[in-house]
């Protein structure tokens, strides 16, 4: 029998960002015992990087806003590929989730009459983003963290133990979901600090692990974003959808090289910042696509008037959805009109007084000052696209966040797919975390409540031992000459440095499955991924298990390779351009493709002997038709751009 330590909890949440913490709070408030597992320290999750705000149609700044308008904006932003039910729930529930944060101690910026202030953002018709300067994500994570502490203080009073019903296991990585038959029975993982393995037995697991950005070279994502949840779900038999849609944020830092990719918040544009090329031209006016022609200003004068008088003017095209702006910047740079370091200029200095810039965008001011020696109150920033967010994720039920096909598995936040369609609007991420985090926690709790006692799924020793062996493989990986048991696992060859493999993976994805894609390049990407997968079996590490980053990376490589293959395969399959998926060889949007979701699954039988063969199969699935009353929110003219004639004439 395995000597791995075991614990028993009702609900396990993997990930302690916005979605994970919100899920944990909900499960605990339902009266269940909930464990949260996170790779970093508690409170350091990637959510802190979110800057702009939380989209919620509270109507504090413009009373015309309501959930229907928010729903409409979300569907437009996602080019109608969003799961309509998720977009509906999201738009309806977001205001409650924001107000709830206030009762937990969040301190948002205020309007003159003391309500939560809301700011403009790309793709949102009204000022909608609740914010705290440009550090909204930090406020969100800290508020949830402090709410968890508040619940723990309550438990101390009632049970004499802070961790009686809610416990955070920090700096732990989950490497496998464990199952009993097809049902979830727990998780297997290791503590980063000690390297010790552990098993938590639990009938319900909520995945809230965020995204996959670390598979790309230029990214705004932190090291944690290795697609763990995506891969865990695949390996447990769940499926992923929409994986071809990767959002490249239009404005990341481009210089100096060591900070390339770090995010420059969209609020810079929301608050008046403009994009210019090396000729000093506001080029975005040349890139307004037909579907958005009526909604955006045609002249600089009109765009500038909009900031003061949004009811009688149209917004400037700098505030188009992110995919449009990212592509435009990419084209300008390719056409030779870029900035010295290969980006374009984002200028706020000529638009707002220095004092106001420092007040509204303090962390941007700080970030450029400290990292690039640029004073944004006096000179323009250089920016370019950076991998920011994956729209694709675990295929879930919209209402319950339950993963399709694996009872007991739930997913919320970036790791879940469907909500944002082919492109996410800024600000919709934080609200997504809260709305679906809560739903995942609630339904995981309900599911687990029914599974106490003998009906509870069990963890088998064999599964635990297999997981242990898998996790330990990097220590026994050795070059062909030296021999050793581990060498037999992979193809013969020298031991590989995991950092080198990771860099090669990032380079391949960036070059071949990046912002602009071509069929042959993606085929090449799949070939390289297969080779990397073969080599990754020989990824070896030195030292011991205590806080060994080389080992951690060797384990994470499995996940990055799996999700990268999903992205490349799905992207190769979808022969159109839409949202976060742009094909040079299929530049137009095709209404027939709107009806199709691409579903990725692990191949039932993969031929391990031939490493060039993939592990993932992609399948087409029809989108569910949008409910009539929701369709009625749009003008017929607009729908014609997205929906096929048959869909429009259907009763």
């Amino acid at each position, binding site marked *: 029998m395995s000597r791995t330590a075991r614990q028993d909890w009702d609900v396990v949440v993997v990930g302690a960002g916005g979605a994970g913490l919100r899920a944990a709070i909900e499960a605990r408030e339902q009266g269940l015992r909930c464990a949260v597992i996170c790779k970093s320290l508690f409170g350091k999750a990637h959510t802190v990087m979110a800057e702009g705000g939380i989209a919620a149609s509270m109507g504090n700044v413009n009373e015309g806003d309501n959930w229907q308008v928010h729903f409409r904006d979300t569907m437009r932003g996602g080019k109608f590929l969003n799961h309509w039910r998720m977009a509906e729930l999201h738009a309806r529930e977001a205001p409650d989730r924001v107000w709830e944060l206030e009762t937990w*101690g969040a301190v948002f910026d205020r309007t003159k009459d003391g309500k939560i202030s809301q700011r403009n953002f790309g793709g949102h018709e009204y000022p909608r983003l609740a914010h705290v300067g440009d550090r909204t994500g930090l406020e969100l994570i800290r508020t949830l963290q402090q709410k968890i502490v508040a619940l723990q203080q309550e438990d101390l009073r009632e049970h004499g133990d802070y961790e009686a019903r809610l416990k955070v296991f920090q700096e732990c990585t989950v490497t496998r979901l464990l199952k009993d038959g097809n049902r979830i029975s727990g998780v297997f993982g290791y503590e980063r*600090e000690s390297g010790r393995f552990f098993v938590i037995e639990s009938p319900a697991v909520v995945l809230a692990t965020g995204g996959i950005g670390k598979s790309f070279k230029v990214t705004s994502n932190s090291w944690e974003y290795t697609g763990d949840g995506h891969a865990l779900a695949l390996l447990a038999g769940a499926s992923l959808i929409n994986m071809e849609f990767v959002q490249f944020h239009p404005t990341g830092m481009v210089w100096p090289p*060591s900070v390339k990719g770090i995010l420059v918040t969209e609020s810079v544009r929301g608050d008046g910042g403009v994009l210019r090329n090396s000729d000093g031209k506001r080029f975005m006016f040349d890139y307004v696509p037909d579907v958005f022609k009526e909604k955006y200003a045609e002249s600089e004068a009109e765009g500038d008037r909009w900031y003061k008088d949004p009811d009688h003017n149209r917004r400037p095209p700098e505030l188009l959805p992110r995919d449009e702006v990212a592509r435009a910047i990419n084209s300008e740079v390719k056409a030779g009109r870029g900035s010295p370091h290969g980006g374009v200029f984002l200028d706020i200095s000529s638009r707002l007084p220095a004092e106001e810039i420092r007040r509204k965008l303090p962390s941007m001011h700080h970030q450029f000052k400290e*990292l690039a020696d640029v004073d944004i109150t006096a000179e323009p920033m250089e920016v370019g696209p950076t991998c920011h967010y994956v729209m694709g994720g675990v295929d879930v039920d919209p209402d319950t966040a339950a993963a399709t096909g694996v009872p007991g598995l739930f997913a919320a936040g970036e790791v879940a797919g469907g909500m944002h369609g082919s492109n996410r609007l800024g600000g919709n991420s934080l609200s997504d975390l809260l709305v679906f985090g809560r739903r995942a926690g609630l339904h995981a709790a309900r599911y687990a409540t029914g599974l106490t006692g003998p009906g509870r799924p069990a963890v088998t020793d064999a599964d635990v031992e297999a997981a242990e062996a898998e996790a330990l493989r990097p220590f026994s990986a050795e070059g062909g000459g030296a021999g050793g048991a581990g060498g037999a696992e992979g193809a013969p060859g020298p031991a590989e440095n995991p950092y080198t493999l990771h860099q090669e993976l990032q380079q391949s994805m960036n070059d071949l499955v990046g912002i602009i894609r071509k069929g042959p390049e993606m085929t090449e990407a799949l070939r390289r991924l297969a080779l990397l997968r073969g080599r990754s079996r020989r990824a070896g590490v030195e030292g011991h298990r205590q806080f060994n980053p080389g080992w951690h990376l060797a384990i994470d490589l499995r996940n990055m390779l799996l999700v990268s293959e999903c992205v490349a395969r799905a992207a190769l399959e979808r022969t159109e351009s839409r949202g976060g998926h742009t094909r040079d060889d299929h530049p137009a949007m095709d209404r027939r493709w709107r009806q199709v979701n691409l579903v990725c699954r692990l191949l039932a039988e993969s031929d391990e002997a031939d490493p060039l063969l993939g592990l993932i199969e992609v399948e087409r699935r029809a989108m569910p038709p949008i409910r009539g009353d929701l369709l009625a929110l749009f003008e017929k003219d607009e729908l014609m751009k997205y929906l096929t004639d048959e869909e429009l004439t259907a009763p």
Partner: protein
Amino acid sequence: MSYDAHFRVWRGDASGGELADHTVAVNDGEVVLDVIHRLQATEATDLAVRWNCKAGKCGSCSAEINGRPRLMCMTRMSSLPPGETVTVTPMRAFPVVRDLVTDVSFNYAKAREVPAFVPPPGLAPGEYRMRQEDVGRSQEFRKCIECFLCQDTCHVVRDHEENKTAFAGPRFLMRVAELDMHPLDAAAETGLDRKRAAQEEHGLGYCNITKCCTEVCPEHIKITDNALIPLKERAVDRKYDPLVWLGSKIRRRGA
């Protein structure tokens, strides 16, 4: 532009360790964390270091560079004296785990000892009304990224392990100040006096306002001037000030 820099990095664990010498390439615009990563990818693949965002927003990569507590991701190589050895060690106020990683559990334990925000009774979610000028002070403190550099540099615990039980440290005294200045916190209505707690439970009196916490704060929060001293003054209000005492007596009689 690239040059070779000489680094001394502390390697070891709780049983001991030493400063290891390395010569590493440094490129234009790089920060100390970039150089540590280069070391990791080349000659020391098992070098333990915490980091996350690499943009000064998460507060994970706290360490001591040339003897001063700093974030590795926000310390540009060009800000260090050229040609001189760069010494990187773990934070020295906390138990070491391995290499540059320390056990920061002290801070999480202290966080739990500060009673949470008490929502005002009778106000439903969505009914909170606060003016910007009323939330400004709390907002400054909520910029904190919990890098724990202030906790690390504070001599009260850095130089006196035995004070760790009695002293919450600047970060969590600031948290008390944040809640005490929150316009809608209803702690007082439940009988909780945060000012008294600051002094009696969280060790406010240990602070001798020597301002090292403010000096190291990467978010430039004026911890001493805006949180700790006002908190001390608030504690004085209820204990030592004769005029405030007189004023409250008169008002009580008048009422």
